[in-house]
């Protein structure tokens, strides 16, 4: 009897943006852009100014009321709120400044490769490339492959997400002692035959990623993160 296709879920694998140039395929780290960093800076400034403004307003009300123990509860509540908001504002500002500084000196990292998607029991050879806008003193390069399960569930009105790292492999660390304006290194990863296949369905994901770390002597260390897509092994 002929079966009717009734699939509703069309996407089983995560969407990963891979581009092609004349020689090979490549993927670019979408983080660390100048605009991304600038947005964090603006967000941080807005949060800090709002906290300062609300703080001044609350303080004026308390002073007008003549202070005293009657306002102690309100003062403590606002104090806790103010500390949290100051923390959020400072985190946004520092992240923004960090990302903007990196984006001013370095272009986004890219990995170049020949085969896509990756397959179990295969070899993944990739070249990490990144250009510094002024020569920087490079000290080392690291690369790490990570696989994690991400499960999201509902608990009452809250949506919770749990993550479990199920695979991690550090690739060979590369030592550098030179001033460079072009960073490039090729790594090879032997994909295990029993590596879990990528999955991205409603509230359940198996995510593969590659994290490349760049260490400098005269600048901030930085990382580039790329999403990998692992498919089943192809057999004859």
């Amino acid at each position, binding site marked *: *009897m*002929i*079966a*009717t*296709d*009734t*699939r*509703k*879920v069309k996407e*089983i*694998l995560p969407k990963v943006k891979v581009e092609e140039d004349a020689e090979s395929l490549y993927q670019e780290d979408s983080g660390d852009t100048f605009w991304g960093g600038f947005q964090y800076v603006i967000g941080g400034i807005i949060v800090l100014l709002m906290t300062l403004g609300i703080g001044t307003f609350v303080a004026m009300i308390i002073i007008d009321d003549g202070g005293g123990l009657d306002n102690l509860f309100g003062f403590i509540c606002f104090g806790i709120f103010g500390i949290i908001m100051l923390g959020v504002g400072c985190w946004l500002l520092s992240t923004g400044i960090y990302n903007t500084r990196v984006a001013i000196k370095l272009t986004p990292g890219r990995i170049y490769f020949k085969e896509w998607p990756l397959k*179990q029991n295969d070899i993944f050879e990739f070249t990490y490339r990144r250009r510094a806008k002024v020569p920087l003193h490079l000290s080392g390069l690291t690369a790490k492959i990570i696989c994690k*399960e*991400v*499960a*999201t*569930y*509902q608990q009452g009105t809250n949506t919770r997400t*749990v993550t*479990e790292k*199920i695979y991690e492999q550090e690739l060979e660390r590369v030592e550098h002692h030179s001033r460079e304006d072009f960073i490039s290194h090729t790594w090879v990863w032997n994909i295990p035959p029993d590596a*879990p*296949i990528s*999955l991205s*369905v*409603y*509230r*359940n994901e*198996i995510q593969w990623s590659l994290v490349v770390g760049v260490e400098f002597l005269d600048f901030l260390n930085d990382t580039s993160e790329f999403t990998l897509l692992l*498919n*089943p*092994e*192809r*057999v*004859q």
Partner: protein
Amino acid sequence: MIEFQIENDTTEPLGKIHGRVTWTPEKEVTPKALIVSLMWRTEGRGSEAKDTVAEVRQTPGPVFAGDPFEMEFEFEIPEEGPVTYNGKLIRVIWEVHFRADIPWAWDVTDATLITVEPRLVAR
């Protein structure tokens, strides 16, 4: 009573699953439809994701008590899977599911597990 007979309960993406379901009703009924479907679902910490990949339907008319009714099926596993998986937070389970849609009564259902291995046979 529902009985599944599957020739190959382990396959791979693009592989086929052949078999037959035999349903022996306990009393005479006229089901609206008999449906055999191939489906996958997730189990574990995350909310359930599921999908029915393909199905076969039949409208047999009256079915008599103790009289076995057989349905054959052949399904193809999609290329993109997902494959059977048993992880720490997530499990992906494939099954062949039978349902007799009986008017004004509980549906009769049963399922049997199959395994979709993570290998893709080159064609």
